[in-house]
């Protein structure tokens, strides 16, 4: 198992390397003269342009720019924001916990509803419950998530003043308010997650329950709870885990919109404002950070997958 984990980690390095090239390569997309555009375009003073050029090393060849940037990144330095002059890393680190709470809560919501619904559906294909789940999940998947957010706000904050439509409250300040402010964001992102997980669990479980070894489990007289709960779920977990991994990538991306709609200052709004201001170091830093995060989550999913599927560890 340990060798498996180490091998997986080793495989990540080339991947992250290519990602870093892509992220740094964003500088090539800046229209016009990079230094001028980033300094403010038409309103840029020559001093400002010179400063930007110096800070970002834009007068040097691309490869040495990249080398310098990469060297810093490896030491945890994403440079300074062009706007606030603060280290990008600390700005990201300040905002990251909030995003984590949104994405994490949404994932929890998705698992909480998705897994049981998938199980109910999977053990009795074509039953009434199953059909209901299929229709419900189809609707949920088709619905644009940010529209869902808007409608939730309309219903719960505007028409009825039950939940707040904006803002974030720290858990340490008030657990209840923390919950109230995060509930709608969680539902917004969690609904799609729940639907996807339910679908995947349904398919995987239905397949497993039709397999020969389940028949064997029944034939030795195991009670249904054990047949489904132990043998069924263990074997169905692999595809579900894969989907959970994919969902996390989606959730991290989805927080951008959700934070924007609900006015929460997290990593998503940071990226958004950075883009709005053409704050290149902030953009590169946060995208790199998000990519690293996604990669780590996928690693965890891979390990969990290998844990449930012994054959994978051998290859």
């Amino acid at each position, binding site marked *: 198992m340990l060798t498996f984990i180490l091998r997986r980690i080793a495989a990540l390095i080339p*991947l992250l390397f290519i990602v870093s090239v892509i992220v740094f390569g964003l500088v090539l997309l800046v229209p016009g003269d990079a230094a001028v555009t980033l300094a403010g375009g038409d309103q840029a003073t020559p001093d400002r342009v010179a400063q930007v050029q110096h800070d970002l090393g834009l007068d040097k060849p691309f490869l040495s720019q990249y080398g310098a940037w990469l060297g810093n990144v490896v030491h945890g330095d994403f440079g300074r924001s062009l706007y606030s002059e603060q280290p990008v890393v600390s700005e990201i680190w300040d905002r990251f916990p909030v995003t984590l709470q949104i994405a994490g809560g949404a994932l929890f919501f998705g698992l909480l509803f998705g897994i049981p619904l998938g199980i109910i559906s999977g053990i009795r294909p074509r039953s009434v419950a199953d059909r209901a789940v299929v229709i419900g999940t189809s609707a949920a998947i088709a619905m644009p998530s940010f529209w869902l957010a808007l409608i939730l706000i309309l219903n719960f904050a505007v028409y009825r003043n039950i939940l707040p439509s904006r803002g974030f409250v720290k858990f340490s300040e008030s657990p209840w308010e923390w919950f109230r402010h995060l509930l709608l964001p969680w539902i917004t992102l969690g609904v799609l997650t729940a639907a996807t997980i339910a679908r995947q669990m349904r398919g995987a479980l239905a397949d497993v329950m039709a397999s020969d070894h389940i028949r064997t489990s029944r034939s030795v007289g195991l009670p249904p709870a054990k047949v489904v709960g132990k043998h069924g779920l263990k074997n169905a977990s692999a595809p579900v885990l894969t989907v959970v991994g994919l969902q996390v990538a989606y959730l991290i991306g989805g927080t951008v919109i959700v934070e924007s709609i609900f006015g929460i200052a997290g990593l998503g709004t940071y990226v958004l404002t950075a883009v709005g201001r053409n704050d290149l170091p902030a953009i590169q830093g946060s995208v790199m950070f998000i990519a690293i995060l996604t990669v780590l989550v996928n690693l965890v999913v891979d390990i969990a997958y290998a844990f449930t599927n012994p054959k994978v560890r051998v290859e």
Partner: protein
Amino acid sequence: MSDWGSRSGDVDPFLTSGDNRPLDSTSEIERGTEGFWTPSSLPSHDTVPAHVGFWKRFRRNKVAMAAAIYLVLLILAALFSKHIGLQDPNAQNLEQINHTPSGAHWFGQDDLGRDVFARVIYGARISLEAAFLAVALALIVAIPLGLLAGFLGGWVDQTLMRISDAFQVIPALVLALVISGILGPSTTNVAIALAIVFAPGFIRLIRGQVIGVREETYVEASRSVGAKPLFIIRKRILHNIASPLIVQAAVTAGFALLAEASLSFLGLGVQPPAASWGTMLSRAFAQVYQAGWLLWIPGGAIAITVLAFNLIGDGLRDALGTETRGA
């Protein structure tokens, strides 16, 4: 007792088949004639020209047909928006802000008194344009690269796959956001950004299918002695690559529409006064307390159109009878 029954099972075929000449022309494959060399992997619908069966099958799927009709109407309305007698989508009427639907204004009026119905149709044009352009650009990049990766294999394949992986590690919306933001807000830049986001998925699909077909063709070529391999390859490739690709393209167009709406909502797409559905949604949200009902229309339009793309994709998948090999 009596002779040999029909249970040939695992008996030497030359004893039971009528004739044992090898196939010597492609027309035999086409007719699916007997002879133990008929490769079992040739699906039966290869013997019927592909497009005949397909339309019949697609038409039978009522839901997909309804979705297709809706989409066609929408596209036509968007294309000929200037000629179908709509009100001016940019004409403001500050006396009639946020009016609910009326006889003159079927979808009501927005926060500047503009006719919402007209704006929805004009917005459709922008949203659909962005979506189709994104998919088209993605395909233009992905088809050659995918074919290259699949046929050449080796380090070309490995490199392309690693690069694809790297792109797919960055969440789609973040990548699109960042690329279109840096390039500058406009519909075209949104389409370019989305094309970059979707291309890796297409590359992977095409490459996977090419590899699958390649393997099968070797097997077939070794069996169908005399049959022209080039003909088989062309037929098999066309079906096995084009079909899943078309399905994927349809579904991706739906995602592209959704993504464009998201980006416009965040302010990165088309700039005012022109509006895509995403922009309309963001304006409506800005005054959710005053005129929340305005949310329903552009949002509903997006949802229904995305659903239509998905349903068409499902219908295409059933009608084309595709089997996708894992990437």
